[in-house]
């Protein structure tokens, strides 16, 4: 057989070896996950192919000490590949999450979590009865890998109601409902410090807070519709944040249109990372990560107490920069807001919340 290069057995084994290499390549790339480095996979493929073919060659050539070394290396490589594949299959079958995402999410204060409880057509709210104790802002900074001296925020205890909103005093009826994003939720302040609580104290009206971070006007309107209506409702308020509500609106409107066309809503579920190969890759990558110790300084605000360094995260848009989808989305939002107010006989309000740069550049 050795001396007959075109022998059919030789070709079959050659073909099997090629299949093993290609299968390994696809296994590490396709199943490994989209964020698995293509370079790493290609690297695996090339090295794997080389030794697999070398092994096959040596098995059938059977000549010389070099051939025997290559044959052994090939055998080691194939054993290693088989072991990795067995591990990979095992962890995928049992659905193990190498990123331990459920445990990781519990370390994130509710304020910084993406709302994931489906609500309305395509929107999301927080799950109910969440609680947190500690400095929300600094905890999240720590989660993001920062170890810096600056301190912002303070130790607080926050509690969310059964619907996932910041109402520590359960209300059965109210005169004002205020929906908004993170600027209304303010999940790092105590309940009494919320502007909705201040508003209640200054007006004597009962105020329901419907603020959830990572939401835009269409989601907030959905909150008003499902959680904001009451017998005594007089004012329905949406707090519009100039920093990102146009972008959020554009994304929400896109999802809403998709829903109208396909009747399919999005879901936000944890996608388990069960790939052993990717876990090893991430472990090696994480080890090389450097702890961040500085935040960028974009400006200094000259206050009566001295120069305060500022980090500017975004700049508000001009009206000419608003995308077409956001124009359409804004019309839909305002029309539905007006209709909801007419139907339930409350006064609709839109309070325009400036970004930090908008409120201090004039000073």
């Amino acid at each position, binding site marked *: 057989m050795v001396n007959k290069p075109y022998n059919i057995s030789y070709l079959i084994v050659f073909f099997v070896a090629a299949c093993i290499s290609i299968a390994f390549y696809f296994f590490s790339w396709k199943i490994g996950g989209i964020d698995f480095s293509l370079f790493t996979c290609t690297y695996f493929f090339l090295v794997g192919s080389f030794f697999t073919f070398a092994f096959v060659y040596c098995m059938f050539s059977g000549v010389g000490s070099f051939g025997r070394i290559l044959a052994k290396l090939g055998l080691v490589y194939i054993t290693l590949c088989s072991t990795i594949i067995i591990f990979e299959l095992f962890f995928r079958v049992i659905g193990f999450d190498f990123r331990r995402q459920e445990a990781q999410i519990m370390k994130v204060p509710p304020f910084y979590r993406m709302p994931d409880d489906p609500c309305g057509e395509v929107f999301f709210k927080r799950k109910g009865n969440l609680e947190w104790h500690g400095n929300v802002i600094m905890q999240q900074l720590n989660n993001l890998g920062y170890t810096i001296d600056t301190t912002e925020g303070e130790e607080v205890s926050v509690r969310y109601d059964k619907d996932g909103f910041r109402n520590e005093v359960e209300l059965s009826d109210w005169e004002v409902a205020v929906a908004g994003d993170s*600027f209304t939720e303010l999940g*790092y302040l105590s309940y009494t410090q919320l502007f909705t609580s201040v508003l209640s104290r200054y007006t004597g009206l009962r105020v329901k807070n419907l603020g959830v971070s990572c939401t835009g006007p269409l989601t907030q309107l959905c909150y008003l519709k499902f959680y904001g209506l009451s017998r005594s409702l007089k004012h329905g308020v949406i707090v519009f944040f100039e920093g990102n509500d146009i972008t959020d609106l554009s994304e929400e409107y896109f999802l809403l249109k998709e829903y109208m066309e396909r009747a399919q809503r999005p879901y936000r579920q944890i996608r388990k990372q069960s790939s052993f190969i990717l876990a090893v890759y991430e472990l090696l990558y994480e080890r090389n990560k450097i702890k961040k110790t500085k935040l960028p*300084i974009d*400006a200094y605000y000259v*206050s009566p107490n001295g120069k305060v360094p500022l980090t*500017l995260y975004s700049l508000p848009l001009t009206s000419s920069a608003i995308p077409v989808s956001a124009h359409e989305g804004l019309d839909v939002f305002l029309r539905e807001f007006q209709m909801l107010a007419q139907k339930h006989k409350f006064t609709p309000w839109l309070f325009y919340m400036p970004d930090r740069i908008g409120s*201090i550049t004039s000073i």
Partner: protein
Amino acid sequence: MIFPESVKKPVVNWKPTDLPLFISNKCAQFNINFVDLTPDLIREAESTTNMLYHAQVDSHLTAEGSCAVGKIMAKYLKRPEGDLDNR
């Protein structure tokens, strides 16, 4: 505000945009009461030594800023309906 040299031009040259006016006009079209909190917050920031927004780590309102917003909103919601002359 003072800008370090490393900061890019769009930040240094940033001026308040026409977005509030644009949203205000849209609201008027649909009979939604519009209130821009910016002028009131600027007045509040001028009259206090406390920061109304967090400076570096976070960009949201401080407890003082939240209190200011609550008071400003109260001013509008306490008024008889439709009285928005002093927006």
